[in-house]
Structure formats: structure tokens, C-alpha cells
């Protein structure tokens, strides 16, 4: 299952840069470059696909079960190389003299890079930046998959809100949500959570903490459908929200809305961050927009769940039509602790639309 549109883009890129070929490398954590051409959810740990200037396409896999799966979806040349470095030297992947570029070079084990050098007689060059830029603007097919992932994120949050209960442990709730998402076809899901009050300064993996009446329960769900991740961030209160929780959430909602209203082609990432941070500043909470209290005001989404460019005030990247990102002003506020709120957005001709359908509110659950 080669992405033919991507293959055309890659061939043009090889031509433009005068490379002799391009390798797309992925490992079990970071599969995005590989999967942008070969949509195989390999279990790994490594996979490489090479496209030569001559037009050959070769796929190296390191596990025999992945080999079988790949063979069933593509007629490209597929081979098994448990010793990846050896495979890179022996195979036609990067084995011809000339300059080979590698998307994912920085992630590759040093021994693999040495093997490419040995095979080609030249230092490989990084094509990670070029491939990332190529992947930022999504095709109609990719946006359809992101819509499916966002719809699953909505269903997942609905299930999350229905399931959370006083006395339940954080990790038990995560188990329930993971089960729901897998039952409904998610390949994977990235999920963080936290619960409590103003002592909560960020999200992390689930602990054995039991939910209590009055807790803010915050989560980001990031289900993956056919390779593509969409995300939703919401905050829920167990019992009636306090005045502080309501006031705090209203600031987050205003900030996210400001970003959503601003986002359109030509807007810089820095402006998207500033418009969110300005809301906090106007409410007297400007100090909580820095790295001590928060990470980013959003990020792009796609075959990886935390793609560049990040939405930060010092990032000058200009947004383009059909980019997909989440704007989330998640941060700590002394009013009611860390809160989260965000939707997956797709940039249109003159604005953006949210792919999430979940109500934009502070959720509350009777207890």
C-alpha cells in the first residue's frame, strides 16, 4: 500500500536536490517518515523504505511477521534484515554510489548511518526537514483519516466522561478508555491525565490516585486511526464546579476561541500563540504562559502526534491551507490548578474548522 501521491512528491524532491535516492526510516516509536510512503503499522523495531533516483523501491523490515504483512500489501521489493546495518550495506538500499538522503537520519542508530556511509561511499544527508514540510499539508485522503480519528476522540471523551467516578483510580479510568478506543478501531492512543485541585501542575501517566468529589479531571486523548492522530483536550469536574474552576475554565475557553478565530492561511505560529497568551495576560495571569507552567500552545498533528511547528511565540512558521493542528492553551493557573482545553483544527481557505464535535464546555458530573 504505497502512497502514490507521496511517491510522486518524493521523486520530485530527489530530482530537485540531485540526490541519488531517499531513505525513509522509522522505529517503533517514530514511524511517521516510513508510514508516509508505506502505510504499514510495523511492530518493529525498525523499518526503512528506499526510493532510488532510478525508480527502484525497496523495503527493509526487521521482523518476519512485518515482512509477511508488507508483502501482502505491496508489490515493491521487500526483504528481511534483522541486522539492519548489515541489511543496509548488502541491499540496494543506499548501496549505489552517490548521495543518499535520509528522512529520520537523526533518529537512526549510529551504526545504521555508518552502514549507509559504507554502502554509498558518501556521507548521507538529512531529509527530515524536507519530509516534515511535505507532510504538513494534508491531502483530502489524509484529512478524511484525521476526521475519523477526531470522531473517535470525541467518542472516547464521551466514554471518559461517562465512566469517571469518585473512588475510581486514575489508571483504572485509563484502562477503560484504552479499551473503548481499541474496541472502536484505534491503532494506538496517546493519553495523559491528572486529577485534583490547585496542587495539580501538569499531566502525566496515570497514578493510583482515587478521584474525589470536587476534583478537576483533565485529559488529552489522541487516538490513531490508520496511522493518523487527532487530539482532544477537555476538563471535567466531579460535582458542581467551584467559582474558581468556572472562572479558570472561562479563560481557557476564551484563549482557545481566540486561536480558532485567528487561524487561517498566512497566520504565523507566533501569532496563534500570542493571541492565546494575551487572553491570560488580560486576565492578570501572563506569568503562567511561560515554560515554567506550560509547554506549547498547540502543535501539528498527522502521522506523529506532536509534529512541528509548535505553537509558540518565537516560532515564525506561516500556516498553510490543509494543515492540521491542535490549539490548546493548557497551563497551570493558581485559580484551580492545571487545566486543558483544545480541539483539532484543519486550516481552510479563509479560516479553520474544528474536527471535534465534543461540546466546548467545562464538563461536570453529578456525584
Amino acid at each position, binding site marked *: 500500500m504505497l502512497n502514490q501521491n507521496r511517491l510522486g512528491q518524493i521523486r520530485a524532491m530527489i530530482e530537485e536536490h540531485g540526490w541519488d535516492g531517499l531513505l525513509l526510516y522509522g*522505529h*517503533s*516509536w517514530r514511524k511517521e517518515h516510513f508510514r508516509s510512503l508505506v502505510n504499514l*503499522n510495523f*511492530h*518493529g*523495531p525498525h523499518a526503512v523504505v528506499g526510493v532510488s533516483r532510478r525508480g527502484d523501491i525497496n523495503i527493509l523490515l*526487521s*521482523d*518476519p*511477521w512485518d515482512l*509477511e*504483512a508488507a508483502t*501482502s500489501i505491496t508489490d515493491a521489493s521487500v526483504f528481511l534484515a*534483522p541486522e539492519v546495518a548489515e541489511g543496509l550495506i548488502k541491499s540496494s538500499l543506499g548501496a549505489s554510489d552517490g548521495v543518499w538522503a535520509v528522512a529520520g*537520519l*537523526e*533518529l*537512526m*542508530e*549510529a*551504526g*545504521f*548511518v*555508518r552502514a549507509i556511509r559504507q554502502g554509498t561511499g558518501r556521507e548521507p544527508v538529512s531529509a527530515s526537514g524536507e519530509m516534515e514540510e511535505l507532510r504538513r499539508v494534508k491531502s483530502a485522503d489524509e484529512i478524511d483519516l484525521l476526521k475519523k480519528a477526531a470522531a473517535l476522540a470525541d467518542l472516547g471523551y464521551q466514554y471518559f466522561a461517562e465512566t469517571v467516578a469518585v473512588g475510581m483510580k*486514575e*489508571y*483504572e479510568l*485509563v*484502562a*477503560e478508555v*484504552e*479499551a*473503548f*478506543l*481499541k*474496541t*472502536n*478501531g484505534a*491503532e*494506538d*492512543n*496517546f*493519553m*495523559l491525565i491528572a486529577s485534583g485541585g490547585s496542587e495539580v*501542575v*501538569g499531566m*502525566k*501517566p*496515570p*497514578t*493510583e490516585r482515587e478521584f474525589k468529589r470536587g476534583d478537576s479531571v483533565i485529559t488529552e486523548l489522541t487516538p490513531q486511526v490508520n496511522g493518523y492522530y487527532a487530539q482532544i483536550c477537555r476538563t471535567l469536574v466531579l460535582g458542581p464546579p467551584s467559582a474558581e474552576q468556572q472562572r479558570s475554565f472561562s479563560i481557557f475557553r476564551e484563549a482557545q476561541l481566540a486561536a480558532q478565530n485567528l487561524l487561517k492561511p498566512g497566520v504565523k505560529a507566533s501569532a496563534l500563540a500570542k493571541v492565546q497568551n494575551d487572553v491570560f495576560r488580560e486576565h492578570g495571569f501572563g506569568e503562567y504562559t511561560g*515554560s*515554567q*507552567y506550560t*509547554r506549547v500552545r498547540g502543535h501539528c498533528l498527522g502521522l506523529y502526534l506532536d509534529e512541528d511547528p509548535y505553537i509558540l511565540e518565537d516560532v515564525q512558521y506561516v500556516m498553510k491551507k490543509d494543515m492540521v493542528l491542535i490549539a490548546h492553551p493548557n497551563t*497551570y493557573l493558581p485559580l484551580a490548578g*492545571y487545566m486543558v482545553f483544545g480541539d483539532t483544527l484543519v486550516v481552510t481557505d479563509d479560516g479553520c474548522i474544528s474536527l471535534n464535535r465534543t461540546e466546548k464546555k467545562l464538563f461536570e458530573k453529578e456525584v
Partner: protein
Amino acid sequence: MKRGWITWDKRELPPDVFRTRIECVRQILKTDDLSALVVYTDIWRSNWGRYLSNFMPYWNRSLVIIPMDGPPILLCALSPRVYPWIRSVTILDDIRTSPKLLDSLLNVCADYSWKRLGILDLEHLPQQIYGPLTGSGISLVNISAEHSLKRTSDPNELSMWRKGVSMVRHILETQLLKAPAETDFILAGRLERAFRTAGIEDLLLLFSDGHNSPAPARGTEFTDVVSVAVAAEYRGCWVRLTRTQGDPPVVKLLAKRFEEILRTLGREKASPEQVYVRNISGSYPYEYIPAAALSEGLVVSVDVEVPINGDRLFYGDTCQVGENGAEPL
């Protein structure tokens, strides 16, 4: 992806266990005249950092540094907001914010005047770190994790593996009894719930309906045969098991064939297309290795594929390679 309950039960792994492991590292440092050992760790390659410090990045990547003198240091790309949590589940106290790991490492080397470092599995370092580090003027010595740290002969680690295997075996066999007439998505959901609730940190599930080798769920409806391969991480120890649900006599035959193959593993040439061995005690959670590459002491998963009545059936377990083949843990 790691999203389960990451914790440190000190009754299960007392702090002394880590003190012994750190002391073992310091003996290596002393022998090789090294200032510190640097261990790369990320969300997927966390085995060695976890073994030495109980730290597992639930996201991003880090370097664990074991100095010859002084407490371990964590160079961490995660936010300082989660450091209290990290301190609560690891032996680490000195945690330094390091969005750029290499720069932070070089700063630490400069601060302590370190000129000669041991790097755990040097050639496995990501190029982004390896390239500039090798040009930094610091002398780098490769320390082989497998040969130096002796994880697979550590009784505490073997005990954790056994505990993980026992838990995964029980859950998988219980849940599989309900498998036929479900889709792989439904079974995946049921297994996720059971494993995550039991405290599994990370999980990979592969399914076969008898016509393919185990693969991620894709909506397949099972009829009368289901094989499920589970890779699960229990408190830093990965285990893998594969079980098949089908006619009881067939399943019995499969288990018998598995036992036969274990006895000959590494000693006789088994037909390679029917035996799949993965190292689960190395850098990666699991890494396919040819059966001929097995060495005594390794902790591996062994899967056999047996064709019966036109179906491809699978059975596997986590084993340790010994003098007389491989023994299930």
C-alpha cells in the same frame, strides 16, 4: 504506547537492588578509568535506564548518567512540572531540564571536567547525539549492556520477569476463552482493559485468524481459530506470550510441539520458518534474532508456528536460554 500505571513498589524492588546495580556500574567505570556511564533512554528504548534507576520516560527521551562519584543524574527533556512524580517512582533526585540532551551532557562534562565517558551501547545511540558527541573531544568507550550489566542473571530482574509472565499468561488464557465469534478490535479492547487494570505499563497486541502471522488488529472477524501474541511491559520487564484458542486437542498438540522445539533450541537446526525468537532482554523491548544467534542466559520470546488442518497456529512464551535449550520463565 506507555500510558499504564508506572510505579515503584519498594517491597517488590527494594532500593538496595538499585544500589547494587549502580555499584556494578562503578566497578566497570573503575576498571576502564571512566568518569561516568551515559545511558540513552526514550519512550521505546527504556530497558536499561529503567534497570539502573527505575526511570521510564512516558514520553520523549532522556540520558541517565551514573558518575563514578556522586549520585546519578537525569538529563530530562520532560517538563520540570513532572519531576516530583519522577522522583517518586525512581532512585533519581538530581534531575536537570534538558530540552537539548547533547548540550546538557556536554555542559555536565565541562562542569565536572570529565574527559572520558562510558556510553552504554555506543553504536545504538541516535545519530543526532552520536555525531556531535564523537566530535566533542571527549573520549568515548563503548560499554556493552548485555555483557557488562548482566541483567539476565540478576535474580531480582528474573523474579520480575517471572511475575510478569505469570500475570500475562493468566490474563491472556482467561480472556481467550471468550474469543471466538468476536472481532480482533473487540478482543483488543477486552485485553487492553484486563492488562491495564492489572498494572501493565505498555502493551502490544497482534492477532491471527489462522490465515496470517500475528498482526495488529484490523477488524477481522474470528471464526473458530484465534491466535493472540501479547508483548507487555510489567514494571520495566517486557514479556511476550502467544496463545491459540481452538479445538482443545489441536491446542494441546501445539503446546507439545512448542515444548519439543524449546528442548532443541540453539542446539539443533529447527526449521527457521516455524520458529521465531526475539530478544527481550536487550535495548529494544523485543528484537527478532535468528535462532542460530542464541546465547546462554538470554531472555527471549520463542514463538512456534505449526500448520494444523490448513490453519497456521501459533504458540509462544518467554524463556531463558540454558544448557538444555530454552526454559519458560
